């Protein structure tokens, strides 16, 4: 079943067109990797899906369906609860580790203190961070290391009980060990969530994704099973890119 269906999606920043009639489906419980060189529209695609492009005064045409329902027919806060977004640089909000996790759930519903405690604990465990911060919940979140901050952001998104988790180069600033931890977390969570992973690291896409989409200058060049795309791509441009000949 398709979790997300994108039909003829174009996105414009004033005069510049960042996405050109993209159509693709995202299946439930898969990790879809999106690769492509700089300014190929990878981030714009994610920002279109959770309507974050609106704060940049961008416009879109085309259709995006979440569970066969147009995203514009879903209240925006519900849409963003169901589709989480993790940024390249971890966005740690002011305040403690606990407050960071509790922020999302508190926006969407009233919770008792005990329920919230449990939710925070579960989210941190699911984000593979609990063991490292269990005794530091009241510390300022900005004191965590870069890798911990990124896992905090993942845990914060998990605490909202989303359906789709989009990641925009989540490991770009991280060391190999932190990267491995985040990849392990994603593979564990795959059974309950759907992932869209934008990455500049083609090896990462090859390691953990089920299918891979190659974007180039705002166009979808190719979308296929990851193994197929990396071993025998149909398009020359894809081949060039994954072999590192450009981009």
């Amino acid at each position, binding site marked *: 079943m398709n979790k997300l269906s994108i039909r003829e999606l174009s996105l414009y920043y004033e005069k510049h067109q960042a996405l050109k009639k993209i159509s693709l489906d995202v299946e439930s419980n898969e990790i879809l990797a999106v690769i492509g060189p700089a300014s190929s529209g990878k981030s714009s695609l994610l920002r279109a899906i959770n309507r*974050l492009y609106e704060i940049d005064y961008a416009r879109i045409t085309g259709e995006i369906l979440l569970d066969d329902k147009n995203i514009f027919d879903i209240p925006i*806060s519900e849409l963003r609860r169901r589709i*989480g*977004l993790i*940024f390249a640089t971890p966005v740690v*909000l002011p*305040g403690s580790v606990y407050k960071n996790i509790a922020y*999302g759930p508190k926006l969407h519903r009233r919770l008792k203190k005990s329920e919230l405690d449990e939710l925070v604990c579960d989210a941190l465990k699911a984000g593979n961070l609990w063991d490292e911060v269990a005794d530091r919940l009241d510390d300022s979140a900005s004191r965590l290391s870069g890798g911990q901050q990124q896992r905090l952001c993942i845990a914060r998104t998990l605490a*909202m009980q989303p359906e789709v988790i989009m990641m925009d180069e989540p490991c770009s600033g991280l060391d190999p060990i932190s990267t491995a931890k985040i990849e392990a977390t994603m593979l564990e969570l795959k059974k309950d969530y759907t992932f869209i992973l934008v990455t500049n690291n083609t090896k990462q896409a090859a390691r953990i994704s089920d299918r891979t989409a190659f974007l180039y200058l705002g166009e979808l060049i190719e979308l296929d099973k990851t193994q197929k795309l990396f071993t025998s791509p149909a398009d020359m441009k894809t081949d060039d890119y994954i072999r590192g000949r450009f981009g």
Partner: protein
Amino acid sequence: MKDKIAEKLLLFIAFSAILSLSLITFFIFQQGIPLIFKAGLGNFFSLRWAPTRGGFGILSMVVGSLMVTIGALAVGIPFGLAGAIFLAEFSSSTIQKTLKPVIELLAGIPSVVFGFIGIVILVPFIREIFGGPGFSVLAASIILGIMILPTIVSISYDALLAVPKTYREGSYALGATKWQTVVMVLLPAARSGIVAGIILGMGRAIGETMAVIMIAGNALKIPGSILDSVRTLTSTIALELGYAAGDHRAALFACGSILFLIIIFLNIIATRITNRK
């Protein structure tokens, strides 16, 4: 070579600024403090102010200054913060570019003009609606509150704009509305800048003299309500320094010293609040 000269010159200028400040401080304390000990602390912090006949009680003026300042903050903080939040988060860039200079211009209006507006409009208005003399804590608070608005608005606005864009995106991406983002993310993140703006505003309110003399009524007693007349430390100095001599003059400098200490004390409290995590 030229660098060396420029460096020495700048050093000299910087030091002369600091030097003149320390000289002023020294002068005020040197003139005022001896009187406090001569009169005795009991006399000094009493209610009887008759400086030509040995009564040096400044308590009612200290209370007056504090009441007027708190009143000014009660008016200035909510309006100032609301203005800054509106400008930074809820208005188009055209509105921002028009309103920001206008608000900053407000800071350039001489205080005597504010006092005049107070006498002509606010005082009669308070007299008719609430009764009493009209010249009151309330009138002074409102006028001072308006006078410190530009400081609070423009510094808080800059602090809000300085919050990284990623905070907004992160908050929106979690499904927060604009208002939730402002209250739960932006205000905490901009807190130190906002408190700095409030401190500066507070300094202006407690030090303001002309407007307060014109509309506060200047009666020498602790006000029983916000509709009563009030006299501040600064008003006393300005009103009496012209004819004061001897101990009376020293008593006014003592008022200045106390004012100085109050401002430093408030600043320390405010910085503590800012730094607390």
